[in-house]
């Protein structure tokens, strides 16, 4: 649920990066934090385990500047991807306005991507949201590993597995090199802002 402050003319919008464990959600935010430091006024908050796995969420407030006289603040979150953390994953989804699904493009991760997406579908239902309606962008991450000879799923297969019914915008990406990380972000921001405008204004 986005929030609009009419007095100070600030719009807050919540975008969540969702996906299987170790898929690269936190790495997406870390890259954004490094590359767009001018648009980020506070520290990135990371609630993580000693082994650098997300325990609860990462949080990064991203300033988009003014749009139609309103200051737009995009609140970026990640969920913990590990299977055992679904209770906390659900808490982070509370009030979500837009989603990036970060899939791990490695062949070995095929099943995990599908299971994670199915669980997202279920989790959204609990908030009376629909995966078919909420702004969503697919990201097929870690494609840089192809150059190291690690088996990577062809994008056509990922599309078939994850996006054949949803038909949302998608990007091959590498959160390590930053390839298509800003493009993913721009896409989800524009989809989300349009949907929030429709809902609230």
């Amino acid at each position, binding site marked *: 649920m986005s929030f609009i402050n009419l007095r100070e003319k600030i719009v*807050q919008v919540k975008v969540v990066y969702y996906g299987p464990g170790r898929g690269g959600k936190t790495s997406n935010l870390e890259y954004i934090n490094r590359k767009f430091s001018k648009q980020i006024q506070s520290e990135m908050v990371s609630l993580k385990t000693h082994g650098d796995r997300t325990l*609860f969420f990462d949080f990064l407030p991203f300033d988009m500047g003014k749009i139609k006289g309103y200051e737009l603040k995009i609140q970026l979150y990640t969920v913990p991807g590990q299977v055992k953390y679904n209770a906390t994953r659900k808490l982070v989804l509370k009030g979500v306005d837009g989603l990036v699904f970060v899939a791990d493009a490695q062949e070995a991760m095929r099943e995990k991507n599908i299971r994670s997406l199915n669980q997202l579908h279920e989790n959204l239902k609990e908030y009376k949201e629909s995966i078919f309606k909420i702004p969503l962008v697919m990201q097929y991450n870690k494609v840089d590993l192809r150059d190291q000879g690690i088996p990577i799923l062809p994008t056509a297969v990922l599309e078939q597995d994850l996006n054949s019914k949803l038909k949302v915008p998608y990007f091959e990406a590498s959160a390590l090199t930053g390839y298509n990380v800003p493009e993913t972000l721009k896409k989800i921001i524009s989809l989300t802002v349009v949907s929030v405008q429709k809902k609230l204004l």
Partner: protein
Amino acid sequence: MNYGVVSQEQLEKIDEILSEQLIKIGVDCVIIIDMAGNIITAKDNGTSKYDVYSFAALAAGNFATVDAMAKLVGEQEFSLLFHKGTDCNIHFSKIDEELLLITMFGKHISLGFLRLNVVKALEQIRKLWGVK
């Protein structure tokens, strides 16, 4: 109630309540957030500067976690959420299903006195929201 948009008039009245009931008695900072971690309004005494956006995200997470734990042990909710430090204390209270009032205050205010004023502020805010 569509809490997604709050009118200027409502916000000004809420700010007035917060100033009158809480800032006046020496509270450092009061924030109203929603359960998704958005800030509805923030007021401080002019000297303390917190990163309110990060704070709101963490506070919403904290509240949601404690709430989920309460349900697990069969409680409706834990009505008092309070963190005590040496120089700063944090007090949480629920305005309604969607909104939280968070108060940060120093050692010169007792918890009892604070709670009394929080309750008054809550009553006034709920009334304001109820009539809209």
